[in-house]
C-alpha cells in the first residue's frame, strides 16, 4: 500500500483504464510507469470519409502520369510534400500531417471494408466487434466529464451499421449520435446554420414541464428505484440507475453548451464552412475542449446529395473538387483552431475512408473501389507531422514502399494516443479480443 499512497486519484483512474487493477499479478512498478504515459490524456477526432476518397486527387498526386487526372499539385509548407490544388488551406497546415500513402488492404466492398477499417477486424461469425470510437473512448475516458466519451456526428450507418456500434462492449460504450447522416434536404432559412441539426435529441425537458416538476418526478422515481434495487443487485438494474444519473447530470451540466454553436463568432463558423461537416468539425473542437475523448465527424457528401459522397464511380473530378472544398475548410480550420487553443498536441485527428479509388480513370470519368494502394492521414497530437510515409508506383496502382495494413494503422493510432494496443476486452463469445490484431506493427517514424 505504501507505493499506492503516492498515486493521485487521477493516476488511479488512469491505472484502472490501463487495466492494472484487474491484473495485479503483473507487477505494480511496470504498470505504474505505463499509467503515467496514459495520464497525459489525449483525445481523438475521426474524420470519416464515406464512400472511399480518391487518393490520386487528394494526397497522392500523380501529375506526370495519365492516371493523375486534371487536378494540379500544390506545394505545401513542407518542402517536397504536395497536395491537390483543391486543398489549399490544408497545404498551409502540412507540418501537422503525416500522410500515409501506402495503405494496402484487401476489402473492396463498402460493407466489409467499412467494418474492417472501423473495427480492425472482418465480420466473423457471432463476434460483435466494437467500432474504434467505442474501443478508444473506453480506454481514454476518465469519467470526469458529464458528457459521454464517444460522440458521433452525422454518421451514415445504413450500409454497415455494426461498424458504427459498440458491439460486445455494450451500450455503455455506444456513441451519442448527433445530426442525421442520411441524405436530407439542405436546411433552409433559419435552420441553415446547423445550430439545431447538431443538437442531442431529447436533452431538454418536455414542453410545459419545468425544472421543479422534473425534480419532483425524479424524486418519485428515486423512491421506486431504491425499493427495487435494494433486493436486486443485478447489472440491468444498476445500469438503469447509472444511465439515469448520467443523463440528468448531462441535462443539467454546463458542458452541454458544447452543442450551442451560436456561441461561436460568425466569422469562425463561416471559416469552418456552413455545412454539416464544417459545423460538425466545430462541434468536435467544442467537445474535445470539454474533455470528450473521441468524436467522429462524417463527410458523407456535399449536403443533401449522396450518403456515400466519395464513391465517385462517375464524374469523379467535379465531385471530388466540391467535397475537397468542404473538407479543406472544415479540417484546416479545425487544426488551426485546436492549435490556437493549445489543444492540438493532445488531439489526434484521423482522416480515412473505407478504401481508396482506382488510379485508372474509367469511361465515366470515374474512379472505382481500390484497396490495393491508397492514403490515410494522421495529424496533430502524438504524430510526427510534415511527412509522407510510404510510396506508390508511378501509375499509382501498387505500393512500392512500406505497405501499411489496417491493423498497422490502428496500432499506430493507439501509439499516438498512448493506448496499449494489446489491451484485451472480453467479447460476447467469452474470448478476450485485443484492441488491435496482435500481428500489427506500429508504423515507424509516425508516433512523435
Amino acid at each position, binding site marked *: 500500500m505504501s507505493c499506492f499512497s503516492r498515486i493521485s486519484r487521477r493516476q488511479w483512474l488512469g491505472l484502472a483504464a490501463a487495466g492494472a487493477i484487474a491484473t495485479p499479478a503483473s507487477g505494480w512498478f511496470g504498470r505504474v510507469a505505463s499509467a503515467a504515459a496514459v495520464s497525459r490524456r489525449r483525445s481523438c477526432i475521426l474524420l470519416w470519409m464515406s464512400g472511399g476518397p480518391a487518393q490520386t486527387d487528394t494526397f497522392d498526386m500523380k501529375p506526370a502520369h495519365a492516371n493523375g487526372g486534371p487536378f494540379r499539385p500544390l506545394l505545401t509548407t513542407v518542402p517536397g510534400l504536395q497536395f491537390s490544388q483543391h486543398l489549399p488551406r490544408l497545404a498551409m497546415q502540412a507540418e501537422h500531417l503525416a500522410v500515409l500513402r501506402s495503405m494496402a488492404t484487401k476489402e473492396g466492398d463498402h460493407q466489409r471494408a467499412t467494418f474492417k477499417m472501423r473495427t480492425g477486424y472482418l465480420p466473423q461469425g457471432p463476434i460483435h466487434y466494437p467500432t474504434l470510437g467505442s474501443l478508444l473512448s473506453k480506454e481514454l475516458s476518465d469519467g470526469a466529464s458529464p458528457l459521454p466519451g464517444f460522440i458521433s456526428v452525422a454518421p451514415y450507418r445504413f450500409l454497415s451499421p455494426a461498424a458504427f456500434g459498440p458491439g*460486445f462492449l455494450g451500450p455503455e460504450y455506444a456513441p451519442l449520435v448527433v445530426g442525421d447522416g442520411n441524405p436530407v434536404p439542405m436546411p433552409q432559412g433559419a435552420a441553415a446554420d446547423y445550430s439545431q441539426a447538431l443538437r442531442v435529441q431529447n436533452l431538454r425537458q418536455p414542453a410545459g414541464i419545468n425544472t421543479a416538476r422534473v425534480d419532483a418526478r425524479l424524486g418519485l422515481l428515486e423512491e421506486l428505484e431504491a425499493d427495487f434495487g435494494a433486493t436486486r443487485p443485478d447489472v440491468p438494474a444498476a445500469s438503469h440507475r447509472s444511465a439515469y444519473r448520467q443523463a440528468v447530470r448531462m441535462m443539467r451540466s454546463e458542458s452541454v453548451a458544447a452543442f450551442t454553436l451560436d456561441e461561436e463568432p460568425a466569422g469562425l463558423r463561416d471559416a469552418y464552412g456552413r455545412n454539416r461537416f464544417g459545423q460538425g468539425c466545430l462541434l468536435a473542437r467544442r467537445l474535445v475542449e470539454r474533455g470528450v475523448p473521441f468524436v467522429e465527424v462524417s463527410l458523407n457528401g456535399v449536403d443533401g446529395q449522396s450518403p456515400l459522397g466519395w464513391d465517385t464511380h462517375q464524374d469523379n473530378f467535379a465531385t471530388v473538387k466540391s467535397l475537397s472544398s468542404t473538407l479543406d475548410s472544415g479540417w484546416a480550420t479545425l487544426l488551426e483552431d485546436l492549435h490556437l487553443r493549445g489543444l492540438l498536441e493532445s488531439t489526434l485527428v484521423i482522416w480515412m475512408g473505407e478504401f481508396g479509388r482506382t488510379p485508372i480513370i474509367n469511361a465515366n470519368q470515374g474512379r472505382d473501389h481500390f484497396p490495393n494502394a491508397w492514403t490515410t492521414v494522421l495529424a496533430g497530437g502524438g504524430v510526427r507531422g510534415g511527412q509522407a510515409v510510404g510510396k506508390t508506383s508511378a501509375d499509382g496502382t501498387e505500393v512500392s514502399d512500406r505497405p501499411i495494413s489496417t491493423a498497422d494503422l490502428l496500432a499506430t493510432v493507439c501509439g499516438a494516443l498512448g493506448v496499449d494496443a494489446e489491451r484485451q476486452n472480453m467479447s460476447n463469445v467469452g474470448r478476450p479480443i485485443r484492441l488491435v490484431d496482435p500481428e500489427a506493427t506500429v508504423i515507424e517514424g509516425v508516433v512523435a
Partner: protein
Amino acid sequence: MSRFFLFQSLALLLPVFVAPVRGDDVADLAERIDRLIEGRLLAEKVVAAPVADDAEFLRRAYLDLGGRVPPSSRVRQFLAATDSNRRRRVVDELLGGSLYVVHFSNVWRKALLPETQADPQTRVLVPGFEGWLRQKLADNTSYATMVREIVTVPLTPTGTPRELLRPDNRPSPLAFYQAKQIKPENLAASTARTFLGIRIECAQCHDHPFDHWKQGEFWSFAAFFAGMERQGRGGFLAGIREVTERRELAIPGTDKKIGPVYLDGSKPLPTQARGGRQLLADWMITSRNPYFARAAVNRLWAHQFGIGLVDPPDDFTADNPPSHPDVLDLLATEFASHDFDVRFILRAIAASDVYQRTSRRTDPSQQNPRLFSRMAVKGLSPEQIFDSLAQATGYVPTAADRQPADPGQPGSPRSEFLELFSDESSRPTQQRTTILQALALMNGDFVADATSLERSRTLGAVATFPALATGERIEALYLAALGRRPRERELKRLVGYVDAGGVTRDSRQALGDVFWALLNSSEFLLNH
C-alpha cells in the same frame, strides 16, 4: 479425437428414448427439473428464494411468452382468482394465443437470422421469414419439422433460379439462405451453431487454437452445401440455384477438393440419391443426434431464464460445460420423446418452481446466477419495451408501427424505439441502459404524450373517471405499468403527493408525475 469426445455420449443417450408413461407430463417434467436444480442448491449450500407472488409471476410469464406486460384487466382477474391451477392456465392461454406467435416469431427470427439485427439490407427479408415462422408457431409445428424445412427447402423447383426477393413476401424460410449470402461456408457455420450449438466457423481459415475443429473438418461439413450457386454477380437480389448432385467443395486458396463428412466423422453413403442438404438433415434432425435437441432446449431455457444451462447458449464446447448436465439431458430427452414440441418444454419450464421463484435476493448465498436460486433480472428486447409501453399507456399502434424498420427513413414511433434500444451485446442479464435511452424515456415525445392528461388514453381515463378515490387511481396506474398493486407504504406516500397536487398544485397533473415515474422505473423497464 475431439469429435469422438464430443459425440461419445451419443450411444449412452440412446436407451433413454423409450416412450414414457403418460400422466401429467408437464407437472412431471417440472418436478424432475426442480428436484435436480434443488439437489444442486442443497449440495452448494445455497438457499433457494421463495416462489414469487401471483403478480410477479403473471408479469414475467406475459413478458417471456407474450412479449409485453399484461393488460391491467387481466392482472385484476388473475389476482382475484383462487383456483390452484391458475398459473398453468395462464401459461396455456398465452401459448395458445396470438401474442405468443408474434413474440416467438421475433425470438426465433433473431436466433436464426442474427444478420437482420446488424444488416439493414437483410431486413427486407424479415416479413417473409417471420410470416413463415408465424404459420409454424400458430400450428405448433414440431421443431424438427421446422428445422428440416429450413435445411431442405427446395431452391430450384422448376430448374430455373429462384429469386429471393419476391414482391408478395410469401411466407418462406428462404431468407435463411440469403442472410448467409448463399455461401456454403456461411451456411455450414450457421447450421452448426444455430441447430447444434457447435461453433466450427473459426476453423474456416485455420486450425483453431482454442477449439477442436480442424480446417478440413470445417470444409467437409460445408461440402453438404456444395451445390449452392448464386446467379449473376454477387448482387443482393441474386437468385439461388442448386446443383443437387454436386458433393465436392474446394478449400479456397488450395486445389484440394473435399467431400462431405458429418461432424461425428461418419460419411453419407456414396450411393444415396439424395441431395447434400437432405443428407445433412437426415443426420442432424433426429433424436439420435443429442446435440440437436440439447441446443434447442438450451435456447428455450436461456430464453426463460436469461442464462443458458450452457452459456453462451450456442457454444457447446468441451471448455464450456453445462451448469446442470442432468437437466440439459432430461429436457433434451423429453423434447425428443414429445416430438420436439416447443410449447411442451415452455409449459414444463414455466410450471417449475425454479422459473417461478422471485427475483428478489432473499439470502446472501444467492450469488451465482448459474445455480438458479432466484430469478435473474433480464433486460427487455426493443420490441418488448415498445409493446409494453404501448400496452401500459393505451397507445394504439399505427400501420407504420407494424412495418419492419427502414433505417433510411424517418421512422414510426415503434421503429425509432427499436433502433434506440437495439443491443448487440445481446446478453439479457448483462443488458445496460444508455444515456440516450434514458433521455428518450425521460424527455421524449412518446412518454410525454403518455403522461399528458390530454393525450394519454390510460392516464386520461384514470384521472378523469368519476367517483374514484385517489388511492384507486394510483392503483390503476400501478396495475397498468407494473402489473401489481402499490404497497401500503407506497400508496400512503403517493396519495399524499397527489392530493397535495404535487408541484403544480393540481391532482390530475400530479397523477401524471406518478405515471411518469412508473414508466421510467427499472421495475417497469426490466423483466424480473
